C-alpha cells in the first residue's frame, strides 16, 4: 500500500490519465486538468531525478569536484529550472486570465449563491432577469427567507430561491457569491471551481457546465462546527429540463 502510494503519484497519470481526479464536467476543466497533469509529471520527474542524483552521489567513490563540473552542477540546472518555471507560469497565467480576467458571456445565466452556517442557497432572478433587493435584517431561514429578500421590491417578486443549484447543460453561468455570516468556500470539484464567499462582498464567478449529472457543492473554508456538512447538490440538466424545473419552481412559489 505504502509503495503503491509513493509510486502512484508519478507513475499513474500515464497508466490512466488522472484516475485520481473526479470527473471533469466544465468547459474550462480539460485544459486545467492537462496543465495539472503536466505539472504533476514534471514534479514527479524532478523528484525522481533529485533522489537519483542523491543516491548516486552517496554511493559513488569519493572524488573531488573540478571547477568545470562545479559550474555545470549549478548554473546549467538552474538555468533549465528558470526556463521551466517561466514556461509553467506563463501557461498557468494564460489559463487563469481566460477564467478570471474577463467577465461572463452577456447571455450567461445569472444565479446568486448565498452561503450561511451551514447551508448554500441559490437564487434565480426570474423572468425579469433582475434580482430583487435583499436586506440583512430580513435574513430568516426558518421563515423561508434565507437570503433576506425584500418582498416589497418589484424586481424580487419573481425571484426563486432553491436549496440546490440546477443549471442547463452548455450554457455559460455567472454566479454571484455572497456570505451572510462568515467566510465560506464555494467549491465544485467536478467543475474544477473554488471561490470563497466573503461577507460584505459580492464575488462573480463564471463557467460553463458541459456534462449533465449531479455533482457535489462543498464548503472549503472552515466556517464553524458544521463546516463538514455544509454541502449542496449541483444538477446539470438539459435546457428543456431546466425550463421545466424553473416552471415547476415558479408554480410552486405562486401557490
Amino acid at each position, binding site marked *: 500500500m505504502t509503495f503503491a502510494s509513493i509510486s502512484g503519484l508519478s507513475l499513474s497519470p500515464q497508466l490512466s490519465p488522472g484516475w485520481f481526479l473526479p470527473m471533469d464536467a466544465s468547459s474550462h476543466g480539460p485544459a486545467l486538468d492537462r496543465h495539472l497533469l503536466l505539472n504533476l509529471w514534471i514534479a514527479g520527474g524532478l523528484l525522481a531525478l533529485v533522489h537519483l542524483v542523491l543516491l548516486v552521489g552517496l554511493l559513488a567513490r569519493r572524488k573531488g569536484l573540478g571547477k568545470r563540473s562545479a559550474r555545470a552542477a*549549478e548554473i546549467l540546472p538552474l538555468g533549465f529550472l528558470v526556463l521551466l518555471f517561466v514556461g509553467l507560469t506563463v501557461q498557468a497565467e494564460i489559463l487563469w486570465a481566460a477564467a478570471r480576467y474577463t467577465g461572463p458571456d452577456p447571455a450567461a445565466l445569472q444565479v446568486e449563491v448565498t452561503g450561511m452556517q451551514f447551508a448554500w442557497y441559490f437564487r434565480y432572478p426570474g423572468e425579469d432577469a433582475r434580482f430583487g433587493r435583499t436586506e440583512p435584517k430580513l435574513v430568516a431561514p426558518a421563515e423561508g427567507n434565507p437570503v433576506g429578500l425584500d418582498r416589497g421590491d418589484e424586481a424580487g417578486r419573481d425571484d426563486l430561491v432553491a436549496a440546490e443549484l440546477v443549471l442547463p447543460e452548455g450554457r455559460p453561468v455567472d454566479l454571484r457569491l455572497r456570505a451572510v455570516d462568515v*467566510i465560506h468556500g464555494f467549491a465544485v470539484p467536478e467543475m474544477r471551481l473554488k471561490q470563497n464567499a466573503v461577507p460584505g462582498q459580492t464575488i462573480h464567478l463564471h463557467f460553463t457546465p458541459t456534462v449533465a449529472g449531479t455533482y457535489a457543492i462543498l464548503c472549503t473554508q472552515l466556517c464553524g462546527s458544521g463546516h463538514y456538512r455544509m454541502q449542496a*447538490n449541483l444538477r446539470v440538466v438539459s435546457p428543456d429540463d431546466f425550463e421545466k424545473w424553473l416552471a415547476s419552481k415558479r408554480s410552486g412559489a405562486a401557490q
Partner: protein
Amino acid sequence: MSANPTPNPAQSRSSATQKPRSLFSADHRTIGRQYLLLALVAVAVGTVLSLLMRLHLTWPDRVLPFHGPILPEDYLALVTFHGTLMVFFVLTTAPQNGFGNLILPSQIGARGMAFPRLNCASFWLTTLSMMVLLSATFAPGGGPISGWTAYPPLSAVASAGPGQGMGMDLWLASLTLFSLATTMASVNTLTTVVRMRCDGMTWNRLPLTVWGWFTAALLSLLAFSVLLAALVLLFCDRHAGTSFFVPMGDVVNGVLQDAKHGSGNGSPLLWLHLFWFFGHPEVYIAILPGMGLTSMVLANFARRRIFNYNLMIATTLLIGFLGILVWGHHMFVAGLNPFAGTAFSISTMAIAIPSSAKVLSWLATIWRSRPEYRTAMLFALGFVSLFVTGGLTGPILAQPILDQYLHNTFFVVAHFHLIMAMAGAFGLFSATYYWFPQITATAARPGRLMSEGLGRVHFWGTILGAYATFLPMHITGLEGEPRHYAQLTGIPGQAGHLMAKPMLMQTHITYGAIFLVLAQIPFLVNLVWSFRNGRLAGENPWAATTMEWKPGLFLADLADETSPEETISVYRGPCDYRDGNNPATFHPQWVSESVAE
C-alpha cells in the same frame, strides 16, 4: 573537566542573573535548553492531538476515554491547538530560540546574547503564552474552532461557534504574548549577530546556521509586529465595538451584528492580508535555521566545503526577502482582484529559484563525498529529501488556476506538512543529534553523545512514517477531498460519494501516522538514556570547523575565574575541509594554521 561555576562579575553583565542553573537564569545556554524543553512538551502535546484527529477521521464512532465522543467542535479545537502549538511553540521556538540561544553566541565567538535579561523575559513570556493557550481547553464552550489562521468573522463574533467566546479570547491573549516574546527575541538575535561577532568573524565567514537565524530574526521582527497589530485589531472588534474585520450587515446565527460594531464597514479580507503578511514569512522563520544547519551538517560529514558558499548566503537572504512578497498566494480564491493572483503567483514562482539553488548546492556538496553516516547526517539527508518532495508541489500550488482546484484540499496539507513540518522536524532532529554534547554539557559535567544505534532506528522509522503518512494525502487531495472536515463519512448527498472514494487511503494514512508516532519512541528513550549514559563527546567529536566546538570556549563563556579574558579570534570561513584525498585534514575557524587528525 572540572571548572568553577561561580560567575566572575568582571566578565558577566550581572552575577546574579548569569547563574546558569537558576530557573530565571539569563545564561544563554540555560535559556536555550529551557526553550528546547518547552518545545518538546509542545511537540508531544501537538502530536497526540494530531493522532486523535487521525483516529477520529478513520473511526468516527470511537469514544475518547475521559471525554466521550469527539464532536465536530472538538475536532476543530484539535485542529486549532495542533496548528498553533506546532507552528508557534515548536517550529518557531525550537530552531530559532532553542538552538539559536544554545549555539549562536558560540558560533560567532561571543560570550552570550546581547541582552541576557531580555532573553530570559522572552522565554518566560513564551512559557506564559503557552500556558494561556492550553488553558483555552478549559474555557466554557471549549477551545477555539477557527484554526490557527482564525479568519473573521468566525473569529470576531463570539456566537459564530462554540469555543469562539472565551476560548478565542485566550487564543488571542496567548498569541499576543507570543508575538511580544518573539519580537524581543528577534531584536536580541539581530543585535547579537550585528554587534557581538568576535575578532575576524566577517559576514562571509559566518556559518550558514547563523545566516539562517539572522534572516529568520529579520523576518520575525517584521512579521510578528504585523501579527501583533492584527491581533489587537481583532480584539477590538470583539470587545471595543470597532469593525476592522466585520462588514456591515453581517448576520450571525440570525443576529445582525451592526449594533455591536458601530457604523463601520470592515473587511474580512483585511485580516487575511495582515495574517498572511505574517503567516508566510512565518513558514520561512520555521525552515531557514534548518536549511542553514543542513548545509553545515552535510559539509561536516562529507568533509567538503559547502558548494558555492557565497551563493548560499545570497539565497538565504533572497528567500527571506521574497518570503515577504508572496503572502497573497494563500488568497488566490479569497476574493482578491484576479490580477493580484497573477502578481503573487509570479513572486511565488520566483522563490523556487533560490530554493532550487540551495538544493543544487546540497547535492553538489555531497556528490561523490562518501560521507560518514552519523545520525545527524542521516537526518540532514532526510531534510534534503523532504524539502525537495514537499517543495516540488509548491510551484503547483503557486499557479492560481491549479489552486482554484487544489486550495484547501489534502494536497495542501501534504505540501506544507512535508516541507514545513517534516523537513522542519528533520532539521530539529539533526540539530539534536549533532549538538547533543552542547545540550548536555555544563560546567560540572561533560557533554555526551546520543546513541547511534537508536538514532538509526529513529531515522529510518521517521522517514518511512513521514512518507507513508503524507505522500498519500496528495492523492486524496487530487480526488477533491477538503481539509478541516470533522468527519469524512456519513455525509449526505453527492458530497458523500466524493468523500467515500478516498476513505481507504485515509485509513492507510492513519496507520502511517500511528507508525510515525511510534517511531519517536526510540528518540525519547535515546534522549533520556544518553543524557546520563551517553558516550562522552570529548572535544570536537565531529571534527567540526565552527566555533561552538572550540576547545575551552565553553568554559570561558561560563565566566570561569581561572580562564582570563581571552580574545577569541577567527582566522577563516567555516567548513574548511581539505577537498581531496585526505578527508581527515581540516582547518577549524579558530586555528590559524592547518590541523591534521
